[in-house]
């Protein structure tokens, strides 16, 4: 009991202590690379909560959300078709595997060359890059659905829609979710990269611009915001996953104990 309390204290205390240490050490810093934390937070507030909230923060987040949502829908849909229709699978398999080898960020220059620096480019980059992890996971997930469950569906003559929505989708759910989590990471990375590579709007662009013009505090503020978004997006995903896949989480926990 006491031990537990100490552990909890450590868990919460250490990060607070680290932040406090950062604050203290950097307080009188004149090092151009490492400005005082107080200044960074000031700039954070000024930049992201006021000046650039509508023009950049919301823009980036909207691209991320929209691109990721589309990537997920397309990825799962295409994954179903690929997994269930042999001809499609045979035809697409080598292509999918080739595209999965390409670092997602390397696709951004191609889209820039094709559609320019606009918002469409950023959206398309996010969608295409984030598509593959979900697509591949969906194919794998559906291909590994327990044959017994397929037999049950056949014996009880479930309709095609029932089979897809009530058997294949939930059975492949854990794997699809794992793929979607990777897709979220990729979408986030490509969001930043597509903004850094020549866009003039967005959090990534602002952060890189600040770095290039040696406005270090602004750069730090950007890094901080991106870090918070990366962490927050992942946490939201985890929460949603644990809710949707509660049956899976529960059964795993039971199997382990």
């Amino acid at each position, binding site marked *: 009991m006491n031990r537990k309390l100490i552990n909890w204290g450590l868990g919460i205390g250490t990060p607070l202590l680290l932040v406090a240490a950062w604050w203290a050490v950097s307080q009188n810093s004149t090092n151009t690379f490492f400005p005082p934390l107080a200044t960074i937070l000031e700039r954070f507030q000024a930049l992201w909560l006021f000046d650039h909230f509508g023009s950049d923060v919301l823009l980036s987040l909207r691209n991320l959300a929209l691109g990721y949502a589309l990537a997920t829908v397309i990825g799962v849909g295409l994954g179903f078709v690929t997994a269930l229709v042999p001809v499609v699978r045979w035809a697409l398999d080598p292509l999918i595997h080739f595209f999965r080898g390409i670092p997602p960020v390397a696709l951004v220059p191609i889209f820039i060359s094709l559609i320019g620096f606009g918002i469409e480019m950023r959206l398309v980059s996010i969608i295409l890059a984030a598509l593959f992890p979900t697509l591949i996971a969906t194919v794998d997930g559906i291909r590994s659905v327990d044959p017994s469950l397929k037999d*049950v569906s056949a014996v009880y003559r479930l309709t095609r829609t029932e089979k897809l929505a*009530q*058997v294949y989708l939930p059975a492949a759910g854990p794997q699809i979710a794992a793929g979607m989590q990777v897709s979220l990471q990729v979408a986030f990375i490509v969001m930043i990269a597509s903004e850094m590579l020549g866009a003039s709007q967005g959090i990534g662009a602002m952060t890189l611009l600040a770095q290039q013009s040696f406005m270090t505090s602004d750069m730090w503020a950007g890094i901080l915001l991106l870090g918070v978004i990366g962490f927050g997006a992942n946490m939201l995903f985890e929460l949603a996953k644990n809710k949707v896949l509660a049956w899976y989480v529960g059964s795993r926990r039971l199997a382990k104990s």
Partner: protein
Amino acid sequence: MNTTDTNPALNPAGTTDMTADSTSGNAGGATAPPRLEVTALSKTYGSGANAKCVIEDLTFTVNTGEVVCIVGPSGVGKTTLLKCLAGLQPATSGTAAIDGRTIAGPPPEMALVFQDYSRSLMPWLTVRKNVRLPLRHLHLPTQEMNQRIDTALEAVGLAHAANQYPWQLSGGMQQRVAIARALAYRPEILIMDEPFASVDAQTRFELEDLCLKIREDFGMTILVVTHDIDEAVYLSDRVVVLGSKPARVLDVIGIDLPAPRDQISTRSLPEFAEQRTTVLSMIRKPA
């Protein structure tokens, strides 16, 4: 074959002379066509060098309203046979037919309780929803659907676990969920693969009696694979003994025990012991 028309049996053949037509199918021709008819069925898995013949030239019938048990050594091909009957595996040669119609896919009037019960339940659905899943496309009125589910769950003694997930239940409970699912579906032909293998003795007796009761109530035709000779004798009108690899019918033994059967009085009849010995000696006999 002289009877190809699909006319359901006029008289439930539960109590007619069963030994007469046991090995010769419906060659007698006088009675109604059998509900389920397996004719010279063979099944080979794989092809070429790694072909494996599991069933060879299997013939037997099941009449409407009959309870027939299949016994045979482990690995002989009982599950494979049931998969052929349920239209999950195509026969390599020969046919299985319902009312004279050759089975090509899962027949609508049939339900199957799988041997691998734990893997045949959807882990993401609660017990109740598992039982409900096959009923949804039957478009029953909500009230009837709910009532069927409740009755089935009560019959297997799981009403209290309706809102739990299968993985929260013991093996025997999971097995009973699978049985409840089949019962709620109300098939005309119910096929079960070692359905009572992992339940305790008390529950086992109750489920056996449940099996006989639904036959009475709904006129179901029931085919059960079991390892338990006593169970086979107690439940059956006839016992199909499979033997050797690949699987063949060694014998079909008619069980002449008075109805209604009762766990205590039936099992203590001298005839029960006799029939049991007959089946047992059939199994022990080298093929």
